[in-house]
């Protein structure tokens, strides 16, 4: 349970860091972070989340090749992940409290 909690914190950290620095500053370091997050998600059997992260990373890669065309897709996929992270918070906090 603690590992998942730590994983969730890592996800939140990355999401919040992006909010501060801006999606347009997406860089190769972010790609590496996302790859690690995706691997952890797969490890915990969170396949849907892993899929979301993979698609976000894919959009990130696309954006780094063509900034103009890719920003909209990147924003949308980033927000899908934001919503998933928000959704995770509630049941997890309840489970931890129990």
């Amino acid at each position, binding site marked *: 349970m603690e590992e998942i909690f730590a994983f969730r914190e890592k996800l939140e950290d990355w999401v919040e860091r*992006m909010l*501060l620095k*801006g*999606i347009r*500053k997406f860089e190769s370091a972010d790609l590496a972070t996302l790859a690690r997050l995706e691997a952890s998600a797969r490890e915990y059997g969170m396949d849907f989340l892993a899929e979301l992260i993979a698609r976000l990373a894919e959009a990130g890669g696309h954006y780094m090749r063509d900034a103009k065309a890719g920003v*909209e897709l990147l924003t*949308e996929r980033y927000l899908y992940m*934001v*919503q998933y992270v*928000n959704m995770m918070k509630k049941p997890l906090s309840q489970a931890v409290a129990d």
Partner: protein
Amino acid sequence: MADFKSDFQRWIGLCNEEYLIKYANKGLYNRACKEIEKGVTVSYEFMDDHVRCALSDDSVCLLYGDIERFSCSCPSDKICKHVILAIVAYATQHQPAAGMGDAGDEPAVFKPDFGWLLQLHPSDFLQAFTAAQIEEVLFRLEYGEALEVAETSFLTVTLQLQQVEVSFDQEADLSRAMCSCKAKGNCIHKLECLLRYRLVHEIDDREALQADITDVSYDAEVAAEARALLAEVLGIGLAKLPETVCTRFELLAIAAHNGNLPALEKDLRGIKGELGLFFQRHVKFSQDVLLDRLARVYLGLAALEKSERPELKKQLLGSFKSKYHTVPHLTLYALGANPWETRSGYKGVTYYFFSLADKRIYTYTEARPVYYEGTSFTYATSYKSKAPWGGLVTMEELSHSQVSLTSAKTNREQRLSSSDETKLVVLPRENIEELDLGETLCRDLAERMGEGAGVLFEQATEHVFLLPTKSVLQVFYEAATQQLIITVEAHDGESIPLVIPYQGEFDKTIRYLENNKRLLELRDVYWLVQVRGDELYPISMLQGKSLTSLKLDL
């Protein structure tokens, strides 16, 4: 001509006493009958499309086989004694002839056919009634009404609670229907009777009408601009965002208001407020809240662009201030009152009622803004003030009673309005244990805790229900969290904590509850509780006919 004659005779069959009185009046009908008794006779001459009726008193009238088309040599421009006389005399002369086998003659006893009422299409209603009328009637259909249908020469539908009756003619024409409210044109009762009559015959027009009157047009340019602005904020990042962005959000919020995007207007202001807190480095600023809002609004706009179904669009667009509609009759059982204060500077008391007919909770709220200097609002004075709806009782008395309201106005969230038209009658109060509380009574707490979170893209609604309990296990004040915790035992033995957060204003109440041993002696009490997040806040306790609102009665 043979056609006209048989049409005419069919029509005469319809013209019985009730029919003629409805179209003319009783006095005219009686006078016409008296004239016949006195010996006035009529001779009939059939033309292509009318009958020339020559009366023995020298007046002449023409009949066209339709009660609304006639002419008479007398000066009256409305239906007159002579016309009625001509009709009645023809009917009496020809009735015995019916069944004699006169070739081509229809029998004079004719059963009218009202099938057209069931064959109408929802689009016919849209032409005959305004969108506002349809909206109001759709709202009223959610409430029960005692319906009486009588078929004579007319099909008369009576709404007994409202004491209104509407008579439909056999002619397929809504404008010929007559309503006892005597309003000109197509009144709301006609539509209500019609829809209720069709519902009885298992024709449900509600969905089709709702879809037709729902206005889902919006300014797509504003929506696109808002999405672009959100993308820009996310793209630049908070660290480098200029403060002028707040003005852009405000301007867009105004544009959203004019572009029929109420939900977007509210959200843009919310984001602006949150960004304002960020720029002030305010302690209340939360990245979580901001990010959640940005995601919800951005993806909501994307969904709006893609959605086709009007009901989905409606949900995404949101609605401006909700409309209040009149409900003929409500019987309300008071459940208690709850004082509250918001961060945005409003104070008020919300009163909760259980409606016996539709088994839902209704609320009435009295609230004042207190952010202006010099505005004073105290819960106690508000609680002791006169209730609306006739002012017979105080709010305090109202919150402990059982009342009947006629012509109450309420909206889709079951909030009651203080309308002057509403009349209140106090009824003897029943025992809470004897009421059928329906879904208002909590049977499965776990299930209840999950409710009220709101549909995707919609704001969460306030969620209140009645919790039956066996006893009170423990009452203690938790200093760390500054809240009073009342642990109650449910009927299945589960212990449930009810929480009252400390507020200076209710210091005495909280102390009283903490130290009062009698609370622990309570058995089989119903608690009115409000769900907020994971916690249950008690509002009042009910047992038998008695009720105690925790923050106002102790």
